[in-house]
């Protein structure tokens, strides 16, 4: 037993000999939990996961003998935990609407029975190794929870329980370890969150994570097992984009970590997830989702832990052979929690108050993403998507700039786009993806061989239009040639008809890869037809006024992904739409178009609308 020497915000100095850094401690009469972050002789410095007010010097403190760990087993899905894996619904039952301090509730329900089916491979096995599947539990309708041998266990399997209903604490089997000791196996095991779970080896990520968001999938793809960041100023749409990914992506498990953000955003997820169906399995989305929530008004130290709790849960499902996506909103709040603790420890700040190890901590965290061959020879992946909240929206600040060096896919959100309510406000020039070649293979095999070329052409158009827009802003649109005006118009068409995709649009909230490609190629087809006519002398102004141009901008919101036939029928009429215009320019009898800026041609006059 030790005692409290000093209380300073979330930090307490303890007299606690023989503790080690990282050990969990319980402190004070009300039993607040925390972890040791520094030692000096017989004294230890600990940070507590809960508010320290009311603690007094002299009160008791004890080391618990283990580092911050999570419970891994059935009962995780469908749940919401706080930053140190306390189940928030159970906490609420126990202590009411507010987070009372010192409440301890086990992470996984102790009284619930799970139907366990032993794995046939274990029937006559004498030897088990860490990561081997002992059996399975159907946790939700869509997810089979595989019960794994804890990673570091190797030995002789003495016995294993038969099929039946068990609580997580009942002993299912026993393993005799090399040193002769007996290890009991249960439906769950614990794992320390700051240590990555082991696997056999890293695999190449090969398949894109389909999110149903065109600017992501079609333009800046992410692979299953990849790492992505979403930086953007406040209100730009980071949370919405992450929620869209959590809803629609084709991962099997989604872990949503709300780290230092708003309480209502988690309520939002809790309310909509059970109502929405997974477009890939048809089951309620909540069945594959779990939430870790440390909101901005909850204690800072647990915020730092929440990210590690989330990633460990992700790795655990990866080890069962699943493709897992973890979204973290926001990694900046985690970094700030790190900064706060470093400040209190008196560590030298380097940039904007952050400690020197910020970059390496970030890198080590993102390194836990990846596609791997698991210990049991399966394949699973963890895809990591972190929101970044740069102060003042300035991407040169430390968290954004370090993150940018680590990740492969960068979805940069723009304030200008968000101000004009162009969502998702992903900036098509500043964003990048290092995964395009791998994604291209998948698109070529599964959707269309022309994907890569079409994507590149659209991006070229967007880049060209940016240049042209600069000219327009200086001297007006009249200074552009017809070809340039048409380019500008086509880029506008792509922005509005393709890139812009409202999360609140019932039809367009999710777009299948087929719909994405159909729209992309259709809009490019419009561009090409128009360009041909412009080259034949048709004035861009006339083309811009074709009803098709307004219609094509609406297609995305008129046809669901399941309704491809109707969309394709509209697309098939594109050539005909241009045909009527083409007649005026292709036939030898048609008048030679007048040069730009002079009297309008016959054709133009006929088409001229109200103005």
């Amino acid at each position, binding site marked *: 037993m030790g005692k409290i020497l000093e209380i300073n915000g979330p930090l307490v100095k303890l007299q606690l000999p023989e503790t080690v850094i990282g050990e969990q401690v319980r402190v004070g009469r009300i039993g607040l939990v925390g972890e040791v972050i520094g030692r000096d002789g017989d004294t230890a410095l600990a940070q507590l996961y809960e508010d320290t007010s009311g603690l007094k010097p*002299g009160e008791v403190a004890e080391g618990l003998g283990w580092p911050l760990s999570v419970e891994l087993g059935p009962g995780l899905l469908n749940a919401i935990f*706080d930053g140190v894996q306390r189940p928030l619904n159970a906490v609420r039952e126990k202590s009411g609407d*507010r987070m009372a301090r010192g409440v301890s509730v086990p992470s996984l329900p102790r009284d619930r029975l799970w139907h366990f089916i032993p794995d046939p491979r274990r029937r006559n096995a004498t030897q088990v190794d860490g990561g081997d599947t002992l059996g399975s539990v159907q946790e939700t309708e869509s997810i089979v929870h595989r019960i794994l041998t804890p990673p570091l266990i190797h030995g002789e399997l003495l016995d294993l329980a038969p099929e039946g209903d068990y609580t997580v604490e009942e002993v299912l089997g026993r393993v005799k370890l090399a040193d002769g000791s007996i290890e009991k196996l249960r439906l769950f095991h614990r794992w320390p969150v700051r240590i990555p779970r082991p696997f056999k080896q890293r695999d190449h990520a090969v398949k894109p994570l389909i999110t149903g968001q065109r600017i992501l999938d079609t333009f800046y793809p992410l692979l299953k097992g990849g790492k992505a960041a979403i930086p953007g100023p406040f*209100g730009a749409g980071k949370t919405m984009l992450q929620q869209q990914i959590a809803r629609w992506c084709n991962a099997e498990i989604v872990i949503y970590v709300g780290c230092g953000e708003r309480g*209502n955003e988690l309520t939002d997820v809790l309310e909509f997830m059970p109502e929405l169906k997974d477009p890939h399995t048809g089951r309620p989305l909540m069945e594959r989702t779990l939430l870790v929530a440390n909101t901005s*008004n909850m204690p800072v130290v647990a915020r730092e832990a929440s990210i590690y709790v989330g990633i460990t849960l992700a790795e655990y499902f990866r080890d069962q052979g699943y493709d897992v996506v973890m979204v973290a909103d926001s990694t900046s709040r985690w970094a700030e929690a790190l900064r706060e603790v470093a400040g209190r420890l008196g560590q030298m700040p380097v940039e904007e108050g952050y400690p020197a190890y910020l970059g390496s901590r970030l890198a080590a965290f993102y390194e836990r993403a990846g596609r791997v061959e698991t210990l049991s020879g399966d394949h699973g992946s963890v895809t990591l998507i972190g929101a970044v909240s740069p102060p003042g929206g300035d991407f040169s600040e430390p968290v954004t700039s370090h993150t940018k060096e680590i990740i492969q896919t960068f979805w940069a959100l723009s304030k200008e786009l968000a101000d004009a309510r162009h969502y998702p406000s992903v900036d098509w020039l500043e964003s990048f993806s290092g995964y395009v070649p791998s994604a291209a293979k998948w698109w070529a095999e599964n959707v269309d061989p022309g994907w890569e070329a079409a994507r590149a052409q659209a991006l070229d158009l967007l880049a060209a239009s940016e240049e042209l827009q600069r000219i327009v802003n200086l001297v007006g649109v009249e200074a552009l040639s017809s070809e340039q005006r048409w380019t500008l118009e086509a880029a506008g068409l792509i922005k509005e008809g393709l890139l812009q995709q409202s999360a609140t649009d019932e039809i367009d909230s999710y777009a299948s890869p087929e719909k994405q490609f159909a729209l992309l190629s259709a809009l490019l087809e419009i561009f090409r037809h128009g360009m041909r006519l412009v080259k034949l002398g048709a004035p861009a102004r006339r083309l811009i006024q074709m009803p098709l141009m307004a219609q094509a901008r609406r297609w995305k919101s008129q046809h669901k992904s399941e309704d491809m036939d109707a969309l394709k029928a509209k697309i098939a009429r594109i050539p005909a739409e241009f045909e009527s215009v083409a007649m005026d320019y292709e036939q030898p009898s048609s008048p030679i178009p007048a040069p730009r800026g002079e009297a309008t041609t016959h054709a133009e006059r006929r088409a001229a609308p109200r103005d």
Partner: protein
Amino acid sequence: MKNIEFRTAVSAQGGLLVMGGVAGVSAGSRVSLKDHAGNLRNGLVIRSSDDAVLVEVFEGTDDLDLERTWVRFLDEPFKLPVSRDILGRVFNGAGLPRDGRPPIISGDRRDVNGEPLNPAARAYPREFIQTGISAIDGMNSLTRGQKLPIFSGGGLPHNRVAAQIVRQAKLLGDASSEFVVVFAAFGTSHADARFFQESFEESGVINKVVMFLNLADEPVIERLLTPRAALTAAEYLAYDLDYHVLVVMTDMTAYAEALREVAVLRGDVPARKGYPGYLYSDLAEIYERAGRIKNRSGSITMIPVLSMPSDDITHPIPDLTGYITEGQIVLGRELFNQGVYPPVTVLPSLSRLMKDGVGKNFTREDHPHVASQLFASYAKALEVRGLAAIIGAEELSDSDRRYLEFAQGFERRFIGQGEDEDRSVYETLNLAWDLLSMLPPESLIRVSEDELAKYHKGSA
């Protein structure tokens, strides 16, 4: 310990007092301090060990005579006595009466720091509040339980806008949906406080208002307590008495500056512009107290006002606020100088809860699309205006000229309105269509074709 007076002050500087020789003082405990003149001051223990206890003194430590300073540790956090009688009362920043009336006597005393709400206990806010202001209702609507700050600047009419919201706010089609108001002012002038007081009196709500005032010339550190005391009162009214509470707090910039002052004294590592790294978490403790709770009928809707230093929205105070609140109403100097009231700059304004509180079952089916279209068209119109400034309006195409007119009409007729003008949301939407009808229907692709046919005045 509560009754022992210690006279063991070791040092005092800029609001922080170090006490020696007191063992076992609880962290966060309230401190009562009697100075040489016999005046009482309030403080809070921010660091405690058996060797030294660090106390933050709200009224400052400037003229303390250490030899003649008596300190009592009350062994409990700062608490506010609450009862029904707080309605109609005026308190100082620490919750003591400043209206000359007797203190609130109640056995129910609440820790002003509150406890964080369990995220699983929140109910998502969805009820549209009509403020009668088009720029808000039409494009950045307020929801019951939302925290929606007003970002303003020196000399801009944020007080008038806030007062107008307080006067006009109601739920659609529910006349009984009145709010009680908790008003907290810190670091504001006497004139500003009086403006609100008179405005509440004029509109006859004064008996449903609780005020907490810490004015510009009053103790700075007490400002750290003022919003917390006010929110404790609000929580009591909302969750014990089932009221819908509208909390107006001004000026959050003064609060953040007070926090910085104390942080510097404590030697905390600064993050940006000298503000401590925990400014975000500290502000969040305040703002996140807005909201709704499952199975409770009351609510807390929060309208904090803050002035952006040098009108800079990237300054840490508006920036961190924007990262916590559910949107922001931004007032702009340009519109103000053109005589537009309320000068709401709509593009950087945002209401994050609007998407779930307007539309078919809440206001009118076209509302979300109309709002989105107004944003898109106005953004485009501003581009055109920028272009016109360079090449001259005569050089613009016909279509661009229409945008120019649209911008003008939008600012004058839609954003601009009277300080007593209380527009229904339907009036606001109809006005929006009047303006959108200045633009060709084929350029309005954020509204549906059906909506165009129904509402666009130029559609045949």
